[in-house]
């Protein structure tokens, strides 16, 4: 069997990911995570002196903390196996990427192990997050300057 025929056969036999089911699962998982986040945000606004604008920071911190606990107890990977992108895209996914790398490299010490590898996966999120924020801000600044939109 030549390479081309094999490649066709391989594509036939390898199961296709069930796209529709995965999308629904991701939507539900992501939705639940975000609903919990919204609940926590209201909690900070209702019981503490936070406004809708300022409640974001403690909410994100709390969500990441929960994600870290779930990762440490080995539960987050199970949620991810079910929810896919639904658990990867919210900020909890970022927390999971960080803490999983930190746990993994604990055996190589705190400095070169945990410190050096903590952002192994999450690092590219930060790099491209900061870079795209810069580009968007630049575009908006130019548009405002020329009076196309206002701040």
């Amino acid at each position: 069997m030549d390479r081309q025929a094999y490649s066709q056969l391989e594509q036939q036999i390898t199961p296709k990911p069930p796209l529709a089911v995965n999308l629904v699962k991701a939507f539900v998982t992501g939705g639940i995570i975000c609903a919990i986040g919204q609940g926590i945000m209201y909690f900070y606004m209702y019981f503490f002196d936070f406004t809708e604008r300022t409640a974001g920071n403690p909410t994100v911190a709390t969500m990441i903390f929960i994600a870290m606990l779930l990762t440490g107890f080995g539960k987050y990977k199970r949620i991810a196996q079910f929810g896919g992108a639904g658990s990867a895209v919210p900020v909890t996914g970022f927390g999971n990427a960080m803490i999983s790398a930190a746990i993994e490299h604990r055996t190589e010490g705190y400095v070169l192990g945990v410190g050096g590898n903590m952002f192994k996966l999450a690092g590219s999120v930060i790099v491209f997050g900061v870079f795209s924020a810069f580009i968007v801000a630049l575009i908006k600044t130019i548009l405002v300057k020329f009076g196309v939109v206002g701040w």
Partner: protein
Amino acid sequence: MVARGVIRFGSRPTIRAAAVAAGPAEKKNSPFSSQFDRLYDSELCGQKTNEQAHRQLIEDACDLALNKAEKTISDADYLVCGDLVNEMTPSNFAAASTGLPYVGLFSACATSTSALAYAALLTEAGAASLVLAGAASQHSAIERQFRYPIEYGFKKPENAQWTVTAAGIAAVTPHEQGYPSISQATVGRVVDYGLTDPLNMGAAMAPAAFDTFRRHLEAAGTEPEDYDVIITGDLGAIGTELFRKMATEAGYSVEEDRWRDAGKEFYGGDPAFFAGASGAGCSAAVYFSDVYNRMMEGEYRRALLMATGALLSPLTFQQGESIPCTCHAVELVMGEGENR
């Protein structure tokens, strides 16, 4: 010389004993676990790091194989083994603690059979009266190197495979009656069909398995029906199907019961392990427990072991290279099978 890359062992070196040490997931989920000689309840096997646990498994399997062969470490002449960790440190450290002359072999997950072939050569050459040969893998140590951190959440597809925590070691001696002996080995070529998905390694390895299969049978002048079992290493559900399709297309008749795959059977087809098991310890654990025991009991008189290996690294994958694969075959015969 029989054919290029094919070795026929006139002296019929014998596998005097074989032993397997395995981890908790294997204890709980593998239908072969009752045949394993030592099972750990923790992935760390009482050690501090995964890499130390990996080495512990190799040391255990060596001790157990020697015990079963009623030998001691001072009777052994060589240790021939390998694993998947960078620079094969678990094997190296295990070799240091045994103090044996050591050859580290890297054939990825095909190391179980390449080690057997190497051990048979040493024995046939009269260079050894006892060689410990085998392969090992430890789930966490291998996954962290080839994929993501263990606790990182991502959706694994159905065609993914699960690296086993197990070490299998065989004690190879010059010919002795009443034990499975090694009659022929085929050294695999490296076959690359251009597949690039590291989460679908069974599909990448199937062409290599078929290449070695055909070369081995042509050199031996045999048909698949001549074997009581033809067992591939870790093709998994997808790879096994592809391998069978290739064989069917080439005119071989596939027999469901006799054509086995260690990886596909390792966790009993549990979907939690996706397409099945993989890792250097996968084929070693099944060959050196289930297959060996069935040969000793006389159920199998002639067996073809074909361990498959994907020769990739995370670096080559990220650089967009395809996955070169290999498969080394070892033919075992027992009793009457010796004269066939």
